[in-house]
């Protein structure tokens, strides 16, 4: 499943994922955003892994926010990732 969201005035966030027994799996966030340090992408993917597929945008964004407490996101946000996740889930 594949979802994309272009942050207004910012960057594109892409989410590829699968759902297995009601939970997100094989989550891969990508895009033309900026993120420091580079390991933070793994933190985001790992945080989304296993999340209930019924999670709402606020819950997804909160999960990403916690995972990126020590990262710098430039041109995108936890909310942008949440929109892309929801779009993937409804694709």
């Amino acid at each position, binding site marked *: 499943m594949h979802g*994309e*969201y*272009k942050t*207004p*005035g*910012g*960057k*594109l966030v*892409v989410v*590829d994922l699968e759902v297995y027994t009601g939970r997100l799996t094989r989550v*891969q*966030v*990508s*895009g*033309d*955003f*900026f*993120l*420091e340090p*580079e390991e933070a*992408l793994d933190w985001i993917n790992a945080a989304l892994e296993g999340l209930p597929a019924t999670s709402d945008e606020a819950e997804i964004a909160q999960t990403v926010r916690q995972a990126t407490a020590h990262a*710098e996101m*430039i*041109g995108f946000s936890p909310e942008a990732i949440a929109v892309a996740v929801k779009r993937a889930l409804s694709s």
Partner: protein
Amino acid sequence: MRTNWHDYDWQLLRDGPLSPNLHMALDEVLTYEVGAGRRKPTVRIWEWGAPAVVIGRYQSVKNEVDPENLGRYGFEVVRRISGGGAMFIEPGNTITYSVYAPQELVAGMSFQESYALMDSWVLEALKTLGIKAWYQPINDITSEGGKIAGAAQTRRGGAVLHHVTMAYDIDAAKMVQVLRIGREKLSDKGQTSAQKRVDPLRSQTGLPRAAVIDRMIETFDDLYGLNRDELKPEELEAARNLAETKFSRKEWIYIIP
């Protein structure tokens, strides 16, 4: 404490054509060398040895390129260490450069501010060529005629790497066949055609590519001073090694498939 451009003895590297992988590796090596203080702050002008699509650190290969057209036109995919978007490269069609500076030059600045700072000399150079260009946050240089350049930054080992690709004479029809430029990406640009996104420097200056580069170098030299330098043999050796062990490997290029 924040420093400024005048605090440094800037060096210029302007070599002949190199392979796309070696360029990726040189950016990593030189960033760490400047951060470690073994190399003075440096501006490097690139020459491409082969056609390439350069994708950002966080981009997925399959979302960015059309594999069939990539092969048909003889392009390779390389992945750089900085974030940002895909660049479409044919030798002689872009002006690509890197600035490697100690992180103190951008200390306390937001990413937005530091992008604009790192290219302020380029805006000045473009002005002397009659192009009224400005920085469009986060990472674009644009003019009334459209987008001219895209920049990317990353901070490693005490240094900031800022690299930029300017469109000199892009074959936009080929570009849209090789790159997948999604509708979602263009959704806030207010443009209907991907072709219109890249406005070549050639049409706006009427100058040969080398003349534009020469003016950029002159402008930097006038503003801050710039000394001609060469890559050290050990830097080139380290970069060749890294190109072989990292940048040419599938494990890196397809780190996000």
